[in-house]
């Protein structure tokens, strides 16, 4: 399976859902519509494309832009040694996207991390709680509008 064929099939199958395809450092970047997440990922996971491995799932905060949050997914195909990066944008108000935990088990903690750091809601996630920060922590620290000097100690500090 060649990378060109994957991109071509993806274009044909989801012609109205794929917004942009570009290349950076020899790897393809696919920008898709948010509501087609599960369709696109199931298509890529199935044979013959066989992107069986979710390498990474993260988020970027572009504060001030129209659709503020950008979800980034990295897929890897073990059988054909191909990597694919997929992106989609979420709005600032109540950002939410469907969970990938049904397809990849490791999405569970990755999505909890993104929820903890950026406050993205994942619908269908079985246990969407903070992963790194503690209960009672207010806000989402990797958002660009989280105050740089804000401290929320869990126990009171001396002096």
């Amino acid at each position, binding site marked *: 399976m060649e990378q060109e064929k994957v991109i071509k099939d993806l274009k044909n199958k989801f012609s109205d859902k794929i917004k942009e395809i570009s290349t950076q450092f020899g790897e393809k970047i696919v920008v898709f519509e948010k509501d087609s997440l599960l369709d696109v990922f199931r298509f890529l996971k199935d044979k013959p494309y066989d992107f069986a491995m979710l390498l990474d799932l993260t988020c970027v905060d572009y504060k001030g832009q129209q659709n503020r949050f950008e979800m980034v997914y990295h897929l890897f195909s073990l059988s054909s040694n191909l990597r694919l990066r997929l992106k989609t944008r979420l709005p600032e108000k109540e950002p939410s996207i469907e969970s990938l935990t049904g397809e990849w088990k490791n999405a569970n903690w990755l999505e909890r991390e993104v929820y903890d750091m950026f406050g993205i809601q994942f619908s269908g996630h079985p246990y969407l709680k903070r992963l*790194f920060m*503690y209960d009672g922590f207010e806000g989402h620290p990797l958002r660009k509008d989280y105050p740089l000097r804000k401290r*929320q*100690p*869990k*126990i009171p500090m*001396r*002096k």
Partner: protein
Amino acid sequence: MKGGFITTTFNSMLGWGRKYSLYQYPFITACCGMEYMSVACAHYDLDRFGMGWTRFSPRQADMLLVVGTITQKEAPVLKTVYDQMTEPKWVVAFGACALSGGIYDNYAVVQGIDKIIPVDVYIPGCPPRPETILDALIKLQEKVQKEGHEWRWSKKK
């Protein structure tokens, strides 16, 4: 008189005994732990100074070595370990992160463990050289020797 005798004060004898039997509790969270291992093992050998015994129960330890970054999430754990140690007890802040938070001046990291528990000796470095650690621990021994030892310990504030 057979066998001879020595004269000393009770206080200095107790100090001498305590400084050469400092049982340590290593609270290791980060990369400074590598330097700690190097110091504790045969090459630099803390045992030469009477600090070789590692106790993995805070109740049996005299010296708490806080080695590495302490996050806000971990702060209550460190406080509990300190509270569980029996008096007399001493605390060593080991490495830049334990001293001041080091490079991690952010939402997640405690800016120095002296914000949570009292500290006796600070060891700077990122991570500190084994020689620095030996020097600092010998300084702690001097401190233990000179301290006014009491039978009943008043709690350190």
